[in-house]
C-alpha cells in the first residue's frame, strides 16, 4: 500500500522551465562594493545605502544558525550573484505594452496572466522576476481607494517617510543571520499601505519567480495596515528546475495598527530538487507581524516546494485584545527538508492566538514543526491553542514536532496538542471499496487532513493550493 501511495505522490514540477531572457547579472560575490552597486542600480537615496551597509557589517559578525532540523552543505555566500534583472527592464517600461513579451509569457505559463483583460478579476499582482519587479497591475484602481501597492524599490523613492519609519521596525536588522543578509542585499519586493478605515478593494498579490542561474533572491515585503483597515495579501513563488541549489532569503514585515487586519497567504512552490535531492531552493525566510490594539494578523501557508525550508511566520501581539493566527500545510517529499512553524509572542492583555499546523511527509523527506508560544507576564487573560498534526507516508520519512511553550502569566492559558498518523490501509480500503482509485483516495485523505488550513485561504488560492496538492499526488498508480 505504501508503495502505491508513494507513487501517487510522484509528480512533475510544472514550473520547472527556464525563460530565455537576457539579463544583467552581477558577478558572484558579496562585499560592500556589491551592496553599493545594488543600491546604485536602484538609484537609492543615501540613507538606504547606509542602512544596507550597517546590516552588512552586522551580518559579518553573525553566525549561521544550526539549530533547525535540516541538513545541507555550507553555503558559499561568495559564489552567489546578488543581482540579476532582465535587460529589458533597464529603461523601466511605462506600461505593459513596453514589457518584454517573453517575460509576460513566463507569467502566463505559470498561470498568472498580467494583461489587464486576462487578469484574475479582483486580484492585483506585483510580479517580481529575479531582482526586479516587472509590473504591478491595477495600480490606478487601488490608488483611487488610497491604497499604495508598488515595488518596494519604488516606495523608497515615493514614500521614503513610510519606508524609513517601518523598514526593520518589526524584524530588526540583527534579528537573525538571514534577515541581516536580506537587509544588506534585498533587491525588490512589494510595499503596501492601506489608509485608515479602508478595506482594500481587492486581493493583493506578489508573484516571485527566480529565473537566472546562480543568483539568490532576496525579496523584501512591507505591509502597513493603518487603523481600522483590512487587506488580504497573497504570495506565490516558483523557480526553474536546476541541479544547483539556489538561495532565497526573504524578509516580510507586517504592521497592523489599532483595529486593523492583515491576512497573509502564501503558496510556496519553489523548485524542490529532484528525487535524489539534487538542486532546489534553500528557502530561508523571516516573516513577522506586529499587532497593535485589537488588530489581527493571520498567516496561512501552503508549503510544497523548496529543498530546504526554514521559515517561521510570527506575530508579536503587542496591543491588548490583538489576535494572531497561523495555519500551515507543509508537504515534503523526495529529499525535501522543512523546518517551519511560528512564534506567537503575547505581550498585551487578552491576546489570542491559534496555531494549526499540518505536516505531511513522504519519500525520504523530513518535516518539522517548530513553534514558540510565549506568554509574557503582562499577557493577562491571554490564550493560545495549538494543534500540530503530522501525516507520515512511507517508512523512510520523518515527522517532528518541537514546540516551545513559555508562560509567565498565571491567567494565561496555553494548550498544545500534537498527533501523528499515517494514511491507513483501512482508510484506503474504504475509499477503494467505494470505487475510488488509490490516487484519488490518497489525495482525498490528504486533502481532508488539510481541510482546516485550506478553508483559511482566499478562494482563488484555495483552488490553486488544492491543485498543487493534487499535482503532487498525481502519477501512475496501478
Amino acid at each position: 500500500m505504501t508503495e502505491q501511495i508513494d507513487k501517487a505522490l510522484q509528480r512533475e514540477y510544472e514550473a520547472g522551465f527556464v525563460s530565455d531572457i537576457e539579463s544583467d547579472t552581477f558577478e558572484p560575490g558579496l562585499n560592500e562594493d556589491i551592496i553599493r552597486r545594488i543600491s546604485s542600480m536602484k538609484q537609492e537615496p543615501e540613507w538606504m545605502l547606509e542602512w544596507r551597509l550597517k546590516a552588512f557589517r552586522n551580518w559579518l559578525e553573525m553566525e549561521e544558525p544550526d539549530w533547525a532540523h535540516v541538513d545541507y552543505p555550507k553555503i558559499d555566500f561568495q559564489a552567489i550573484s546578488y543581482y540579476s534583472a532582465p535587460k529589458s527592464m533597464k529603461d523601466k517600461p511605462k506600461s505593459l505594452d513596453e514589457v518584454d513579451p517573453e517575460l509576460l509569457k513566463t507569467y502566463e505559463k505559470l498561470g498568472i496572466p498580467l494583461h489587464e483583460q486576462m487578469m484574475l478579476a479582483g486580484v492585483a499582482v506585483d510580479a517580481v522576476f529575479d531582482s526586479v519587479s516587472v509590473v504591478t497591475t491595477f495600480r490606478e484602481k487601488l490608488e483611487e481607494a488610497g491604497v499604495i501597492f508598488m515595488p518596494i524599490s519604488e516606495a523608497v523613492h515615493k514614500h521614503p517617510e513610510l519606508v524609513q519609519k517601518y523598514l526593520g521596525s518589526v524584524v530588526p536588522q540583527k534579528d537573525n543571520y538571514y534577515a541581516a543578509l536580506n537587509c544588506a542585499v534585498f533587491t525588490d519586493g512589494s510595499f503596501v499601505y492601506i489608509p485608515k478605515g479602508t478595506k482594500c478593494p481587492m486581493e493583493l498579490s506578489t508573484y516571485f519567480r527566480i529565473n537566472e542561474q546562480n543568483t539568490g533572491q532576496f525579496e523584501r515585503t512591507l505591509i502597513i495596515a493603518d487603523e481600522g483597515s483590512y487587506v488580504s495579501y497573497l504570495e506565490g513563488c516558483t523557480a526553474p528546475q536546476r541541479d544547483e541549489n539556489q538561495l532565497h532569503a526573504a524578509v516580510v514585515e507586517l504592521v497592523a495598527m489599532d483595529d486593523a487586519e492583515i491576512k497573509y497567504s502564501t503558496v510556496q512552490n519553489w523548485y524542490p530538487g529532484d528525487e535524489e535531492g539534487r538542486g532546489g531552493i534553500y528557502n530561508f525566510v523571516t516573516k513577522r507581524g506586529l499587532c497593535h490594539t485589537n488588530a489581527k494578523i493571520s498567516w496561512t501557508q501552503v508549503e510544497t516546494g523548496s529543498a530546504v525550508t526554514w521559515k517561521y511566520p510570527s506575530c508579536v501581539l503587542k496591543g491588548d485584545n490583538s489576535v494572531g493566527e497561523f495555519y500551515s500545510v507543509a508537504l515534503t517529499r523526495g529529499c525535501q527538508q522543512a523546518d517551519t512553524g511560528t512564534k506567537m509572542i503575547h505581550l498585551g492583555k487578552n491576546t489570542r492566538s491559534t496555531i494549526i499546523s499540518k505536516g505531511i511527509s513522504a519519500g525520504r523527506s523530513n518535516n518539522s514543526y517548530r513553534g514558540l508560544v510565549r506568554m509574557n507576564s503582562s499577557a493577562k487573560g491571554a490564550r493560545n491553542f495549538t494543534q500540530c498534526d503530522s501525516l507520515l507516508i512511507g517508512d523512510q520519512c520523518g515527522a517532528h514536532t518541537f514546540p516551545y511553550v513559555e508562560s509567565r502569566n498565571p491567567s494565561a492559558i496555553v494548550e498544545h496538542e500534537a498527533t501523528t498518523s499515517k494514511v491507513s490501509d483501512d482508510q484506503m480500503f474504504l475509499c477503494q471499496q467505494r470505487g475510488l482509485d488509490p490516487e484519488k483516495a490518497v489525495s482525498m485523505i490528504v486533502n481532508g487532513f488539510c481541510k482546516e488550513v485550506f478553508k483559511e485561504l482566499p478562494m482563488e488560492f484555495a483552488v490553486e493550493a488544492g491543485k498543487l496538492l493534487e499535482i503532487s499526488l498525481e502519477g501512475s498508480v496501478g
Partner: protein
Amino acid sequence: MSSWLQTAVERAADVSDGLALKRQASLELLCDAKWPTRKTEAWKYVPINVWERAELSGATNDTVSAPVIDGLDSLDVVFVNGQLQSVAAESIEGLTLISLSDAGAQAADLFGTIKPDRHLFGLVNDVLATEGVVIDVAAGAEIEKPIRIVNLLGEGAEAHTRVLVRLGAGAKATVIEHYSGNSLSRNTGFAEYQVGEKAQLEHYRFALQTGEAMSIGGCHVELAEHSELNSTLVGFGSALSRIDVDVTHAGSHAFAKMNAIYLLDGKELFDLHSTIEHAVPNGTTEENVRGIVADNSRAVFNGRIHIHRDAQKTLAELNNRNLLLSDRAEINTKPELEIYADDVRCAHGATVAEIDQKALYYMQSRGVSRAQAQVMLNFGFINELVDQMPNEALAEWLRPQLRERFASMEVK
C-alpha cells in the same frame, strides 16, 4: 573551561579503582566538553552559574539516620554527604546489594553501559563517583522488599554517587532513590538500570532537595524485550535541580509508564528532561508529567520521544500539564516528537493554565474558603498521579508532604 570543571578534572586524576578504564574515556570527553551557556539548548532556561559560583566549606561527617517511612519495610542504602554510611545487611536470595567499591567486576560490567555520554554532568559523575551501590537481581528472582537508596546532603557537601542496577530476565524489584537536603551543597546522582527480558522494575525517584541544595542527576533505563518499567518521579525545586530521565526501548514489546510531578515555590528551580528512545518495534510509553509552579519559581520540562526507523507499531504518549500560580513564576515546556516510522501512534500534549476557576467557585458555593479550595484543587491535580503509585506506603508518606507544600503556596 569553567574553573569548577577544571578542578573536577584535576580531582579526577586522583581517582583510581577497577573502573579506571571507563573513567578515563569519560575524562577525555569531559576535557573537550563545553561548559553550558544560555545558548546551549539543553540548558536554555537554567542558569548554571550558581553551580560554579558556590563556595563550599566541605561537610562535617556526621552520622545521620535515614528518614523513616511508615509502613515501608525496605532494604536501605544510606549515603551521607556522598559517603556510603550503611548497606542493608539482610541477605536475600537472588539479590546482590553491595557498595560500588566492593563490587569489583560486577561494577565494571554495569558502569556506563546505559548512561548516554552527551551529558556533561553525567561525565562528571563518571569520573568522580567513587561512592555508589550495585544492585544485581538474578534472573527470575522477585525481590519483595523495596530497595531504598537514601542520599542525605548537608551544608557544604559535594557528593557524587552512582547507582547501578541490573534485573535479570524475569526478575522483579522496586528501587527507590531518595534525595534530601536543603542547605548549600553540590551533588550529582546518576543511576543506570538494565531491565532484562520480561523483568519488571518499579522505580521511584524522590528529588526532594530544596533551598540552597544544588543537584544534577539522571536516571537511565534500558528495557529489554517484554520488560516493564513503572516509574514515578517527584521533584521539589531548589537553587538548582536538574534531572535527565532517559528510557531506551532496546527490546520490543517493552512497556514504560512514567509519571512525574514537580512542585515549586519560592525561588526554586526545577528542570526535568526526559528522552524516550524507541529503537525497536512494538514498544509502549505512557508519560504523564504534572507541575505546579508558584511564587518566584521556574520549571522546565523537556520531553522528547524519538521513534527510530525500525520502531514500527510504537505507541507513545506524553502529557504535560502545568498550573502557574503567580505572575513571577515561569514555566517552560517543550514536548518533542521525532518520528521516523509511519505505523505508529504518537501524541503529546502540553498545557499551562491557571487553577480552574469554575471548580473554585463550585467549591466556594459549598462553603469552602477560597484558600482551602485552592489547596484542595492543587492537591487533587497532583494526587491523581500519586494515586497511581503502586506502593501505597510511599503514597501515604508523600501526601502530607505535598499538602504542606500546597498550604504554603500562595495563589493570587
